[in-house]
């Protein structure tokens, strides 16, 4: 066991919380009507969003003759893309907040998974040799 290789394990949120989203990129076309609502969002609500979330780098790019998208980049080097065509202004706001709150991890189906934990159980694992003898 070499001292230089020893390390600790993260506990995000125990003392300080680091939001997992790094950058939010809005891409839309200047002309096509599918980007109309997205352009409206960028003109009306984007500056307020940037002011409320100073920890996120916000980028606006042109995406000529394509559907509008919003892409979130996360600390774990993954990104999430959400297309914005056909959505209303409220729905676009909802999708943007979905990206802001996400951790960037892959979506895992929780139906079949058993309990997984890094911490030991609080009361310890049951031992027949330490329990009371059954009293009939």
């Amino acid at each position: 066991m070499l001292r230089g290789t020893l390390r600790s394990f993260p506990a995000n949120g125990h003392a300080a919380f680091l939001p997992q989203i790094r950058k939010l990129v809005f891409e839309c076309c200047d002309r096509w009507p599918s980007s109309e609502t997205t352009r409206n969002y960028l003109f009306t609500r984007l500056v307020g969003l940037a002011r409320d979330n100073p920890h996120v780098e916000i980028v606006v790019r042109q995406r000529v003759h394509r559907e509008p998208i919003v892409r979130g980049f996360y600390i774990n080097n993954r990104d999430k893309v959400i297309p914005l065509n056909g959505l209303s202004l409220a729905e676009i706001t909802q999708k943007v907040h979905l990206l802001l709150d996400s951790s960037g991890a892959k979506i895992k189906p929780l139906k079949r998974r058993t309990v997984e934990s890094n911490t030991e159980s609080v009361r310890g694992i049951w031992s027949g040799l330490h329990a009371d003898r059954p009293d009939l």
Partner: protein
Amino acid sequence: MAAQKRLVSTAAKIASVSTAYLPRFPPREAIFKHSEIPKPPFAPETWASTRPPPPSALSAFAHRIGLASVLSTSDSVLRVCTHSSFPTLQQQFAPDERKVQTNAQLAPLGNALLGLFATEFIHTAYPHLPTRVLKAAVSAQVGTQTCAAVAQEMGAAPLLRWHRSDDVSHSDALASVPRAITALIYEKLSLLSARQFVHSYFLSREIDLRGMIKFRHPKIALLEMIKKLNREYPKSRLLKETGRYSNSPIFVVGIYSGADKLGEGFGSSLRMAEYRAAEDALHRVYLTRVPNHLMSLPTSTFPTGLGSVFKVKGKEKPHTPADLGMAEVEYGRSGRSSAGYTD
């Protein structure tokens, strides 16, 4: 699926430049111009790695770690994220540009501060911990690997400017970032603010302290400890057993000093159970932890106020030092030293 994963990791490694903040794009060097003197061909990846990250990314980083007041300008964030190996790269590929400020002076100061805060915290929290385990725990809490991991989790990896060489690895370069941040907080605010930063980002992380305590002869170590504390000679007693003649017996043995049970262990043989009981007894001593609300750290004596410890004005605060823990048992040492090993 695997191809997608490879693409993502490769994309993360390639330096990307935001053209919005460049004075001119494409750069002059990229446009081929015939000249008498042969020049080395333009390498776009090297050019991209010498460009500074955009100011929006630097500002977002400062806000993400909650230090927008300390890292108030882009220059201070750039300074913190530039490793001392970067000027050699800049000298080679962009010698005409203004020399960048690096974190070469801040990082060692920050490293010293990290060591100070971690050592006082772990020593106050675990007063009976053996010295080598204490040192291993400090390395785990604020060592290079942890600093690099903290930098990665803060999102400093895309902002880091460095140059790979035989002496400098990616972990070394990343680790300099949180150290430089700690030093900058100490310079701009105070020692106690730097301590708060270290407690939030480093000392809240989990380490496996039990795994760092390794024994060679726990029964002999326990015997020496009992002699030092003038207790009765230890006696191991079989508490419970099952399946003695089967292929999977379980024995539960307790080590007693008089009427007090010092430790309990299980095993598939009597000797194994007794060994574990001695280990358990020593763990119960070494890993006694003082609760956070009863901990009194030595750096709490510094007055709260802005400035370095030599310049800050105010009255010293009272501090009650904790009782010294038991000195370690030393016996039969053959001279080989290994981190965390205790006898």
